[in-house]
C-alpha cells in the first residue's frame, strides 16, 4: 500500500458486530474507493453493529469527514449501532463543520421538470412577440426623449455626443471607404462584362452611381455601423448594467435613457449621412478606376455620365433613409444593452443580438422605403 492510499481491515463477525480499522488517507482522491467500501460493508457483510477505528488514519479532509458521516447515516437507516473510535479532537471539529440534517435533506429535493417541445415553441414565440413589442416601445420612448431634448438643447450631453461621433464616424471612415471602393470596383467590372457585349459600356457610370446612391450606399453603411457601433453600444451599456452603474445613475436622479442612449443616438444620427455620402463617393471612385483604366472611357465622359445619372431627389431620400437607419441601429444597440440584467454572459448575448436585430430591421425598413418611394 502506498502512502497515498486508503486502506481498511475488517475484523469480527457480521452477526456479532464488525470492527473496521481504517488506515492511510481519508481524502478527496480516495473518495470513490471509500464510497464503494461503504456500499460493500452494508450490502455484503450486513453487520449487526459497527465500530470504525481511526487509529491508523494519517490524514483526513472534509471528504473523509463526509465518508464517516455517511457511514453513520447508513447505520442509522439500517438500525444498527455505529461507533467511531480513536477520533482526534481535530477530526471531530471537522465532522462538526457539516450540517448533517441539511445535507441529508438535500438529497430528497426533486429536480424541476423541463418544458416539453410544444410548450417550448409557444414559449419562444411569446418571447419573440414580447421582444418586438419591447423594441418598438423603447424606440418610441427614445424618439419622444430626443424630441423633448431638442427643445432644451442644453440638456443634451454634447461632450458625449462628440466622443461618440468620433468613435462611430471618424474611426469608421477607413473601413467604410475601403469596402465601398471595392464594391464600386466590383460592380463596374461585373456589369461591364455584360454591357460590353452590346457596346454599352457608357452606361457603367450611371449603373454604379444609381445603385450606390439609391440602395447600396445606405445599406452598406448601415451594416458596417451596426457591426462596429451598435454592438459597442450594447456592450458598453450592458457592462454598466452588470456593474450597477445604471442603478447608480437612477439613484442620482438621472434618466438613464437621456444620459446614455440619447447622446449615442444623436451622434450616430449626425454622422450616418456623412458616412453614407462617403460610401457613395468611394464607390463611384471605384467605378471610375475600372471605367477609365479598363473600359476606355475618358475621365470627362465618366464624370459627365455620373452627373447625368444622379438626381437630387435620390440623394435626399438616401440621406433620410440613412438617418432612419441611424436611429434604428443606435436605438436597438442601446435597448439590447439595457436588457442585460447582471451577468457577463448576457452582455455577449446582447452584443450579438444588437447586430442581428439591427440588420433584420434595416432590411425590413429598407423594403418599406423601396415600396413607398416607387409610388412617389
Amino acid at each position, binding site marked *: 500500500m502506498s502512502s497515498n492510499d486508503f486502506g481498511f481491515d475488517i475484523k469480527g463477525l457480521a452477526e456479532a458486530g464488525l470492527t473496521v480499522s481504517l488506515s492511510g488517507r481519508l*481524502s*478527496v*482522491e480516495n*473518495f*470513490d474507493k471509500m*464510497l464503494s467500501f461503504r456500499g460493500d460493508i452494508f450490502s455484503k457483510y450486513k453487520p449487526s453493529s459497527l465500530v470504525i477505528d481511526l487509529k491508523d488514519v494519517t490524514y*483526513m*479532509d*472534509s*471528504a473523509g*469527514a*463526509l465518508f464517516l458521516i*455517511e457511514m453513520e447515516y447508513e447505520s442509522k437507516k439500517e438500525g444498527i449501532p455505529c461507533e467511531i473510535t480513536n477520533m482526534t*479532537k*481535530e*477530526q471531530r*471539529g*471537522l465532522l*462538526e*463543520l*457539516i*450540517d448533517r440534517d*441539511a*445535507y441529508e*435533506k*438535500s*438529497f430528497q*429535493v426533486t429536480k*424541476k421538470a423541463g418544458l416539453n417541445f410544444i410548450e417550448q415553441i409557444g414559449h419562444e414565440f411569446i418571447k419573440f412577440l414580447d421582444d418586438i413589442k419591447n423594441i418598438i416601445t423603447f424606440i418610441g420612448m427614445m424618439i419622444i426623449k430626443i424630441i423633448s431634448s431638442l427643445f432644451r438643447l442644453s440638456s443634451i450631453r454634447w461632450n458625449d455626443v462628440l466622443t461618440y461621433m468620433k468613435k462611430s464616424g471618424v474611426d469608421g471612415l477607413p473601413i467604410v471607404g475601403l469596402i465601398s471602393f471595392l464594391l464600386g470596383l466590383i460592380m463596374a467590372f461585373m456589369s461591364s462584362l455584360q454591357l460590353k457585349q452590346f457596346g454599352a459600356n457608357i452606361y457603367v457610370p450611371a449603373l454604379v452611381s444609381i445603385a450606390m446612391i439609391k440602395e447600396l450606399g445606405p445599406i452598406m453603411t448601415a451594416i458596417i455601423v451596426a457591426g462596429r457601433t451598435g454592438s459597442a453600444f450594447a456592450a458598453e451599456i450592458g457592462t454598466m448594467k452588470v456593474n450597477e452603474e445604471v442603478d447608480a445613475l437612477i439613484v442620482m436622479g438621472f434618466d438613464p435613457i437621456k444620459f446614455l442612449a440619447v447622446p449615442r443616438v444623436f451622434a450616430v444620427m449626425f454622422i450616418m449621412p456623412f458616412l453614407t455620402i462617403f460610401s457613395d463617393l468611394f464607390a463611384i471612385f471605384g467605378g471610375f478606376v475600372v471605367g477609365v483604366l479598363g473600359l476606355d472611357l475618358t475621365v470627362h465622359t465618366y464624370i459627365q455620365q455620373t452627373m447625368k445619372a444622379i438626381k437630387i431627389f435620390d440623394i435626399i431620400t438616401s440621406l433620410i433613409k440613412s438617418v432612419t437607419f441611424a436611429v434604428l441601429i443606435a436605438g436597438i444597440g442601446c435597448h439590447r444593452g439595457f436588457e442585460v*440584467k*447582471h*451577468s*457577463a*454572459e448576457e452582455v455577449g448575448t446582447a452584443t450579438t443580438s444588437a447586430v442581428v436585430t439591427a440588420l433584420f430591421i434595416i432590411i425590413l425598413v429598407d423594403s418599406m422605403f423601396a415600396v413607398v418611394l416607387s409610388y412617389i
Partner: protein
Amino acid sequence: MKEIAISVENLTVRFGDSVVLNNINLNVFKGEILVILGGSGCGKSTLLKHMIGLYEPEKGRVIINGIDIINADENKLRELRKDIGVLFQSSALIGSMTVYENIALPLREYTGLSDDAIERLVRIKLAMVGLLGYEIYLPSELSGGMKKRAGIARAIALDPTILFFDEPSAGLDPITAAELDLLIKNINNGIGTTMVVVTHELESIFNIAHRVIMLEKEEKGIIAEGDPYILRKESKDPRVRNFFNRHIPEHLYQKT
C-alpha cells in the same frame, strides 16, 4: 523551527510609475493562520495576488512549498495550484455556470472522481458554507454575501493545503461572519491548512489570527508583525495601536 509554507523575498511591486509595495519580506508557516491588515488601498489584495503568482513582480521572489512560483514551469505550477485555494475579493464565480457547476469545476478537472462522488462532495462543501438548496442558482441570482460563501466553497473544493481569502467576511451579517470564522478555524484545526486571510474585521482578527502583519500605504510595506493581542497592548507605533483599539487619530476630528 516551524516549517515554512510560503516565503516572500524582497518583493517590490510597481504599477506604472507608482511603487505599491517596496521590498517585502515575509514567511508563512505551515498550519498557521496569517492575517494581512491595513487601510484600504494599501496593497493587501496586491500582495495576495503576488503570493498566488497571478502578477509578475518588479523584483523579488515568492516560494511556495519550495517552488519558485514566478519561474516555475507549467507542470509544476499545475501541481502546485491543486494545493492552493483562493477566494477573491469579488468572489469571481464563473457567471455562466450554476453554483453547483462552479464548485464541481476544480473537482472534475483535478480528481477524476465519479459523478456521484462529485455530487456528494459539492453538497458537503455547500453544507459547510450553509448554501445547500442553491445548487441551481446562477451567481447573478445570489446576494453579495452568498457569493462570498459560494466562492469559499469553491476554494475549499479540493481541500487544498494552502488557502488565500481576500476579505471573506466583508459584506456578511455578523452571525454569518462569526460562522465563517468558525469554519476557517475548524478547517485549519482539522486539516492543518495554512491560511492567508485579508480582513478588516477586528473581531475576526482576534478570533482566528495566529499572527498578523500590517501594511501601510506611505511606508509601502509591513509596519507591524506578531500576535494581535500583544500588538494591541504593546506596539510602539500609534498607527498600529489605533487600528486595534478602533481609535481615530485626532487630526481627523479637527477637520470637522
